[in-house]
């Protein structure tokens, strides 16, 4: 009887010990929460930062752009990652949030490999996603039904795609998936499927198409010839201070932008030849 109690108490205290190990790192730490598209990038940069600055930790969590923005607004984390401008998200008061654009990511339509279509106009794309064109025959493919795969409502990728392709037209209700990985697998295995995803996720299992005869490549995004792209934002509540400020400078430094941002398929902000405002106004950067 006694032994059992000792075992029980020992186990409980062991569990507490373990959990406090996770919490009590000796040193400072900040937390960045939000967009799953941005998560791998921030994680990689955070690991690098900790390696170079012992005792300073960057905790990175996913959860989606909505989570990132609401957490940073509530002040419960130091950095909120988002694919969208905070102003675009309903329920967010953006006045106190400071935007740090850390990278640019292009979004491209992807189709199943067996569809022979190579190019679509923006208008044709919009008609496909609004449900006006339902057969690949009409846009130069075989006689095959179009299967639309959407991302979940409120997803950053979907917002980007709808903003620059649909331009105000509403998309038809169709299949929705909550992760790019699922979208890729479904497009790869479903005949006649079309969807969209960020450049870093495109691989050999799916096929990209040109839009208005522009290829989905980084260099076309840099000049805004490829219009379907968005900034990746890291929001702070007010001007960042201390570790947060140091980390923001670090992630925007040439070294990280060159080595980590570019190698993960994102486009470094400094490579952009144009800038685009929230309202969509494009200006050349001198």
């Amino acid at each position, binding site marked *: 009887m006694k032994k059992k109690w000792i075992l029980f108490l020992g186990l409980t205290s062991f569990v507490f010990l373990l959990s406090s190990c996770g919490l009590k790192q000796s040193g400072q730490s900040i937390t960045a929460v939000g967009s799953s598209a941005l998560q791998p990038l921030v994680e990689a940069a955070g690991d690098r930062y900790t390696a170079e600055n012992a005792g300073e930790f960057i905790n990175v969590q996913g959860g989606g752009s*909505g*989570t990132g923005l609401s957490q940073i607004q509530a002040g419960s984390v130091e950095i909120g990652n988002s694919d969208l401008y905070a102003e675009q998200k309903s329920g967010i008061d953006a006045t106190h949030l400071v935007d740090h654009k850390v990278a640019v990511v292009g979004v491209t339509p992807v189709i199943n490999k067996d569809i022979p279509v190579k190019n679509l106009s923006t208008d044709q794309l919009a008609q496909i996603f609004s449900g006006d064109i339902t057969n690949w025959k009409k846009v130069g493919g075989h006689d095959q039904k179009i299967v639309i795969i959407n991302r*979940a409502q409120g997803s950053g990728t979907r917002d980007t795609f709808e903003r620059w392709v649909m331009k105000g037209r509403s998309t038809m209700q169709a299949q929705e998936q909550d992760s790019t990985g699922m979208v890729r697998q479904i497009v790869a295995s*479903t005949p006649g499927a079309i969807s969209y995803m960020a450049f870093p996720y495109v691989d050999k299992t799916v096929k990209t198409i040109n839009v208005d005869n522009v290829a989905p490549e980084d260099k076309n995004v840099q000049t805004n010839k490829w219009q379907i792209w968005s900034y990746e934002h890291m929001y702070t509540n007010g001007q960042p201070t201390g570790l947060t400020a140091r980390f923001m400078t670090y992630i925007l430094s040439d070294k990280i932008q060159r080595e980590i941002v570019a190698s993960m398929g994102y486009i470094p902000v400094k490579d952009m030849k144009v800038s685009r405002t929230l309202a969509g106004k494009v200006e050349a950067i001198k």
Partner: protein
Amino acid sequence: MNNDEIRVSLLKRSRASKNERWGKLISGACITIIIGVVVSIFYFVASKGLATFFEDKVNLWKFLTGTVWNPSAKDAQGNPQLGALPMIVGSFSVTFLAAIIATPFAIGAAVFMTEISPRLGKKVLQPVIELLVGIPSVVYGFIGLSVVVPFVRHLFGGSGFGILSGTFVLFVMILPTVTSMTVDALNAVPRAYREASLALGATRWQTIYKVVLRASISGIITAVVFGMSRAFGEALAVQMVIGNAMLLPQNLISPASTLTSVLTMGMGNSVMGSLSNNALWSLALLLLIMPLIFNILIRWIGKKGAMRS
């Protein structure tokens, strides 16, 4: 002097009674914590879920019968488009269809395990069924995505995503639960019933069909309802194969969605306190109420069964 010693030792708390007090305290504390957790979950979900109706002034009837779900946009009259009917229909259809398919298999397996070949049943079937219970739902979903969906696509056409695929996946998921509960129900039938039936000259099949199954009917129904409540709450596996289109299902192979799949997809993408977030909480409230109804149903069936025997 001597008397006093006895008095003291009699009035002093014995070890056993101390232990008992301790035991009462510990179990009381545990129960209080559990009740507290349950109550606060209910309060939290209800307060968030009801905000849609009280704060955002969404009509409850429209919420339950509307067919357009688009929390971020408003319709021509300026009302938010919150129609949960497609998800409600989706959830109920996969649940009922899965239960309808699973029930005969579960009863068959249970009869085999208890009446026909208890030894083989205990040695082979029981471990297999227990193994099925332990498989995580994401594994079922993945198998569904890579096997069931293409299978349905080839056999029935369409994209393969839809209620039919969801039904197949759920059928396998609830089968072990329903089977093992049915086994318990059959085992609970008194041995005397079987002996009496056989003594009257009934064959084994007649005994099973006319006596054992009839006597355990309330237990079997409880098992099925239990399986249904599990199917109703399953999120991940269904989400992977049903297609998640917020459309009223036209047929079994057109993409549909369930309450759970909409919840898991939408939570990370909406902001706490906004209408689209509150609407998701309302769905969660619906999901919380449904198992409650299932539970009440189970108790009611149990009472009815008890009265008859």
